[in-house]
């Protein structure tokens, strides 16, 4: 790893499993401070699992996870969050049963301090007026896009060291995706490092400086963003071929590591 500054996130030969189902096989990559990494791969490649391992939601079975130079392997999720890592999970990432404002307050109190809450709320509503209009509604009544904006508002106002955003664009209309990506770009300008998990390869690569491509739980590519597109296409093609041959799928298949591509280290 280069320089004197430790990377904000470093995965070192990380393997992970859901009970008996193995999902990651010795995945290694790192995110430099202030950098932006696109995490790409077909469905089921293990992108969300990487995100969950990094934030402590899924325990690793072997390997190390370092956040900001500190070894965080096996630490509970809340410790990792306090170390400065924010994870916006796939799908719904807000508390449905409390109000929009309470969602924000919950987050700001912990990360900005009690006294900063009113000012932070004001900034959030200034950036996302729609949240201000709905502040007293239960967050569950927001639309999918508005919920993503709510998640973004939390990190935008109090920037963490690293933001892992898992498929923020999923199920959104193109114009809303534009809003969300504008938000992400702003988060990045504030100095936060980014890991962007995406199906929309172009959007992610436009934002990121480097990319990691996963294939069946292993790293198929790790390097500058410019070189990722061809790998992604290759991986997708290979996948559709195995699908046609009917060899893929089935949990038994998942338990064997993919040998096709040897992971490269950063």
């Amino acid at each position: 790893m280069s320089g004197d500054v430790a990377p904000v996130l470093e995965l070192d030969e990380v393997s992970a499993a859901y009970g008996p189902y193995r999902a990651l096989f010795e995945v290694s990559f790192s995110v430099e401070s202030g950098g932006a990494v696109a995490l790409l791969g077909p469905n089921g490649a293990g992108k969300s699992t990487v995100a969950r391992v990094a934030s402590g939601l899924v325990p690793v079975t072997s390997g190390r996870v370092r956040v900001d130079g500190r070894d965080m392997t096996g630490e509970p999720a809340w410790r990792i969050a306090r170390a400065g890592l924010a994870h916006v999970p796939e799908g719904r990432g807000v508390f449905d049963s409390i109000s929009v404002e309470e969602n924000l307050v919950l987050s700001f109190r912990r990360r900005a301090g009690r006294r900063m809450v009113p000012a932070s709320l004001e900034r959030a509503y200034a950036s996302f007026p729609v949240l201000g209009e709905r502040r007293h509604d239960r967050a569950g009544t927001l639309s999918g896009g508005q919920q993503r904006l709510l998640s973004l508002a939390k990190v935008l106002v109090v920037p963490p060291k690293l933001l892992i955003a898992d498929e923020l664009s999923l199920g959104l209309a193109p114009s809303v995706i534009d809003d969300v990506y504008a938000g992400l770009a702003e988060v990045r300008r504030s100095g936060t490092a980014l890991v962007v998990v995406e199906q929309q390869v172009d959007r992610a690569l436009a934002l990121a400086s480097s990319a990691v491509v996963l294939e069946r739980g292993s790293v198929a590519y790790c390097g500058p963003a410019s070189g990722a597109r061809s790998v992604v296409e290759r991986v997708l093609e290979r996948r559709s071929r195995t699908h046609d041959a009917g060899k893929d799928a089935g949990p038994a298949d998942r338990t064997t590591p993919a040998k096709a591509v040897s992971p490269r280290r950063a």
Partner: protein
Amino acid sequence: MEQLLGFAVPGIPYGCAYAVFAVGLVLTYQTTGVFNFGYGAQAYASAFVFAWLVDGHGWSTWAAFVGSVVILGPGLGLVFDRFLFSRIASTNTTAKVVTGLALLVGIPALLPVVFSNENLVGVPSILFAPGTVYFHLGPDVPVNGIYLSAVLLAVAMLVILVLLLRTTSLGLEMRAAVESRRLLELEGVAAVRVTATAWAVSGLMAGLAGVLLAPTEVTVQAQDYVTLMVAAIAAAACAAMGSMTVAAVVGVLIGVVSLTAQGYLPTSSFWYSAVLPAFPFIVLVGALLFVPRLRRLEQVQDPLSTVDPPPPLPTARVRGREIDRLVHTAFWLLVVVFVGSMLTWMPTSWETVLNQGMAYSVIFLSVTLITGTAGQLSLAQATLAGVAAFSAGQLARHFGLDFLAGGVLGSLAASGVAGLLALASLRLRGLGLALMTLAAALLFDVAIFPAQAVSGGTGGIQLTARWLPLDLLAPNGHAYFLLVFLVLVVCAGAVALVQRGTVGRFLAAMRGSELGAAGVGVNIAWQRVLAFVLSGALAGAGGTLLAIQQTVIAPGEFNYQLSLAFVVIVVTTGVGTVEGAIQAGVGLVVVEQLLQYAPQRLQGLAFVLFALGALTYAAHPEGIVELEKRRWTERAERLLARRHGASATAAVTGRS
């Protein structure tokens, strides 16, 4: 006006205790996601220990208060959280309800064993002296220390809790933790601690409510805490488990209205004897029927539940052919030996015990069907058994109908009641259904079974030989044994057939996911009613048999506590299989009989044992006996495999 006040004021301490309790229930539900049936037992425990310390050990009131409320209350809450509820997945309503019930059944039975058996009388009140009249609301309306303490403590607690929940970060985090602990952790909050705090606070409230109520009664009795529990559940249901203020107000109203009505109604009227005691249940049923939000309870889903690995597949028990043959042979041998022994050398006392166990087994089969197969929590199975028994008794008494024929008709009646119950609660599920059936059970207990026309008063109906053919009542004949054995075999076979047939598959699909089952075209409403009707018939058959065995049909034999205990017991041994029900029935009576030989103090321990067993339900939903059976089969298989060499290793598939 004067008179109204005179009647209403004595209702205030009750109302306040109900209110505190209801608020505690709502608080626990909102901050932990658990509807804690064990709450009443927690309150009772604190009151019991409080009385025990003051009465039996001469502690000062305040020291005892600290020991029983400030320390024991939150302590119990923390223990429940740490060892029980934190291990149950938030979506598993059945496990949460069963665990709560186990506490409700187990703790009151355990306390006299741990502490002492004697009655605890003259419990002091905290804050103000109970006997002293502080002021008058009117010439004839004195206000003594009990009222003052109750009102002050209740109001103070309500204010503190509303402030805690609505204005502090801890309150906000507690509400968020109910929805998703993981999402909360992602915010940098240690969710485990938040939930533990919530349990400690709710435990403190339970203790306080218990000690608050203690001085209003002469002795500290578990029974009072059940009334308390029901009134509080009703108040909490009216508030849709949401608003603590509404819960508190309804709680106070239930207490005050009950006592006011008690003052006005003539003591000999039907209203006084039947409707009044049932008042909290009527409120509860009304809330369950008409508060729409209660239908959507338990629907909040953790968005991060996809992080959990899928539950392990039910290990398909492919027993090796060799073991299968062995088990079958052993089973038939056991049956033959059992029947042979019962007919020949078995002492009459043990024959009676085992007969009773078989009668229980028939009732337990109804639990297997409704809960194990259909996945519906019914807390009224003992009531259904009672409906059949009382019907048969009345038919025999008034029309001279043969008791067995009456039993068949009675079982039909029980089916009908069960069907009606299912129809009334079509829109409820999970917790709502459990509460509805519990309310029905209590309604029968308080208002219907004790009625002169049903049971002939508390003494019950005495069976006479005239009603029964074949000398079934003769203590040392074997007629009863043959009858109960036959019915058990038929019922067990019927349940096994249902489980394996089309209906069983539909019911299993419904147990897995009602939405999913409805999606593939299963008529949920009809399947539910069917399951209830069938289980009503089984419970009725068992109830009739039990009545013959006891030779008297008393209301106490079929009360709601038994219904709760039934669920707890069956779940302990194994709720999924026919064998589980039979093991539960026989196990219950054998344990009780064996305890007869133990010191007096340990007599109540049978329920405690089963309650302890039920606490393992969350970890092993198949039941202890079934679990052990599987383990032993696996062990045997491994042994065989080793003996046969490597070729047979493929047979061992289960993980443990």
